[in-house]
């Protein structure tokens, strides 16, 4: 989006210092109100949690190589997969894109100096860290073995592990994401620059807005549900245990009322990132802007009406199951719309195969598989056989890892030069994207077969059915490739911070307000609030090609 605001070409002497240089003390970071610094704090924190979660994942994969296990005890294994689930979902996938990329970019994209409530933003980071520490403490000292779903009555009456502390951690982290959600909603409503109408917003902002709405409407419900579990556990007063007169299925209803929409909390921001990256690297306007924008809201709304498809075998009534199955098919449509629109966006573009775009290609491929295998689970009778098996595991990893993490990496590679003003080696980036894509498919395609064969999830041993072993070995082999794929970016991104060439304000030749300001941006983002006069994604592939202008693509 071009604006009347002056476009800086690098840091000129009169421009204010970058946010990275606005103070060097630890205090200036830990007490900052600057959304960009908070985003960096989040980036560090979620990376740490991703690391812990990955360690747990590796332990699971190694353990399953043999039908009788390799190194872990029953209980340890249960604690490890619970740790993997809780860390990855509550402390990585949910905050990853909104709190890192969204925090950094949302105000800049709409032409604001900061989020509406900077102090609340900082508070949300502290809540996140506090919640994460609670969960880590619980896992370090004794562990927790309920699975991330905390199903009652196991979690409330039977488990002898640190359930309470873990729930307190998830509870606190919930308020962290609520704080972020409130901040984003108000910011999008009230802080847009003049001329930045709703339909000029970058689609990532639409995605973040829809996500925030889900967070605000859903998270409190799981918070109260988990609180009720703690009450039942600690005081033996409760509403879920049949011994106390309750109904354990009520927990599942309340839990999935949030936790199904939570899937969209994880995937919608990633879809937003894809819109930004795909337009830049095809030099095309997005195809079907309005359809993509409204499909985000449709997903956010419909996503609240389909939670029962997690419960087809839970003994909920057959009639309720049918309603939920039907609605689940409806929610598949907006996702299909997005995918087809992205495909049409590439048509007649001027495609540049650079690292972020490779991640986008990976995202589309994996998300399509992940989304379509969701149809098996929304169909009532196929779900009966496949639910609680590795098919489900494979399905949601395709959506969560193939979708959210690919989206996160695409965004991280796209905006890394904006974050730090440094460029990473593109060839290493491409290599890692390729390795991740291959490793991912090797890991999780076999799990579809395993699930169909009947391998239940959360199984430590499978000596009852040793024929599963081949597929487990294949999966573990893929996982080791995937691990290497994740390590490479960690290395070269850190390397680039010190040794990377300067990126300049707009290394990709991208449109959007964030590319009109220096990299890294100054603390107040804009010297003067820009006035937006153009439609979003004002790319022109034809003109680009005609001029045969090589966009400011950094050579290294």
């Amino acid at each position, binding site marked *: 989006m071009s604006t009347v605001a002056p476009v800086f070409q690098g840091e000129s002497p009169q421009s204010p210092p970058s946010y990275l240089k606005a103070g060097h003390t630890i205090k200036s970071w830990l007490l900052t109100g600057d959304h960009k610094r908070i985003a960096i704090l989040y980036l560090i924190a979620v990376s740490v949690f991703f690391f812990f979660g990955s360690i747990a994942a590796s332990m699971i994969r190694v353990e399953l190589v043999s039908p009788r296990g390799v190194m872990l005890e029953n209980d340890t294994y249960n604690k490890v997969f619970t740790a993997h689930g809780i860390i990855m979902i509550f402390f990585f996938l949910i905050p990853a894109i909104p709190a890192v990329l969204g925090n950094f970019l949302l105000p800049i994209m709409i032409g604001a100096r900061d989020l509406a409530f900077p102090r609340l933003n900082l508070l949300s980071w502290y809540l996140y860290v506090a919640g994460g520490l609670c969960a880590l403490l619980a896992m370090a000292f004794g562990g927790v073995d309920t699975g991330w779903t905390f199903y009652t009555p196991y979690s409330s009456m039977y488990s002898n592990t640190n359930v309470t502390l873990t729930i307190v951690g998830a509870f606190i982290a919930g308020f962290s994401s609520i704080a972020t959600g409130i901040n984003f909603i108000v910011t999008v409503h009230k802080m847009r620059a003049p001329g930045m109408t709703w339909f000029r917003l970058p689609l990532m902002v639409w995605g973040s807005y829809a996500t925030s709405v889900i967070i605000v*409407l859903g998270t409190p419900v799981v918070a109260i549900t988990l609180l009720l579990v703690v009450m039942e556990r600690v005081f033996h007063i409760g509403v879920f245990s049949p011994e106390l007169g309750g109904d354990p*299925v009520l927990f599942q*209803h*309340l839990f999935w*009322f949030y936790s199904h929409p939570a899937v969209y909390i994880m995937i919608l921001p990633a879809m937003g990132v894809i819109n930004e990256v795909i337009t830049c690297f095809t030099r095309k306007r997005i195809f079907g802007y309005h359809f993509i924008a409204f499909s985000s809201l449709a997903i956010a709304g419909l996503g609240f*009406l389909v939670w*029962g498809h997690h419960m087809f075998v839970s003994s*909920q*009534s057959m009639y309720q199951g049918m309603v939920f199955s039907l609605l689940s098919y409806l929610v598949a449509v907006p996702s299909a719309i997005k995918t087809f629109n992205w495909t049409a966006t590439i048509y007649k573009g001027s495609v540049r195969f650079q690292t972020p775009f490779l991640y986008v290609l990976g995202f589309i491929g994996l998300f399509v598989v992940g989304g379509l295998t969701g149809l098996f689970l929304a169909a009532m009778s196929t779900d009966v056989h496949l639910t609680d098996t590795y098919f489900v595991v494979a399905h949601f990893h395709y959506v969560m890892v193939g979708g959210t993490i690919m989206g996160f990496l695409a965004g991280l590679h796209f905006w890394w030069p904006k974050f730090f003003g440094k460029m990473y080696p593109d060839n290493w980036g491409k290599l890692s994207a390729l390795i991740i894509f291959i490793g991912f498919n090797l890991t999780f395609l076999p799990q579809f077969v395993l699930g169909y064969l009947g391998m239940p999830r959360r199984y430590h041993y499978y000596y009852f059915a040793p024929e599963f072993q081949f597929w487990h070995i294949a999966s573990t082999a893929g996982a080791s490739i995937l691990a290497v794929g994740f390590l490479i970016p960690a290395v070269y991104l850190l390397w680039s911070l010190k040794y990377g060439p300067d990126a300049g304000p707009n290394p990709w030749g991208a449109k959007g307000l964030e590319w009109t300001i220096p990299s890294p941006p100054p603390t107040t983002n804009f010297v003067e609030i820009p006035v937006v006069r153009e439609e979003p994604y004002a790319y022109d592939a034809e003109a680009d090609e005609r001029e045969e202008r090589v966009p400011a693509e950094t050579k290294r």
Partner: protein
Amino acid sequence: MKIDHSHAHPISMYLKTFFALLVLMVLTVVMAFVHVGPEGNSVLNNLIAMAIAVTKAVLVVLFFMHVKFSTQLTKFWAILGFLWFLLMFIMFADYTTRPREYIRGWEPAAEDPNAPAALPQPPAR
């Protein structure tokens, strides 16, 4: 909007609202002891109690919380929460239809002429 005085409303508005709330308060207590509707059926009483509570809440929201005088945006968010809460009641589709699930054949197989003869007969005595 430059001067804060423009936000202020007359004190009488708050007092009137408060008075209305007290009246409704008395009404709801009285109605709890007056049975309405058919014998053995408390649906109407419950509806009345909830209607009064909702009215009170609306009064508080409109006047004490100034939503009557606020922007469209504020109104939207003020309404959304109360509406979305109602969505959760979808789960009653489960609880109300559970007993409707028709399960054939709880009779002992011995009395069932269709029972396969080769099968073990449950003991008949």
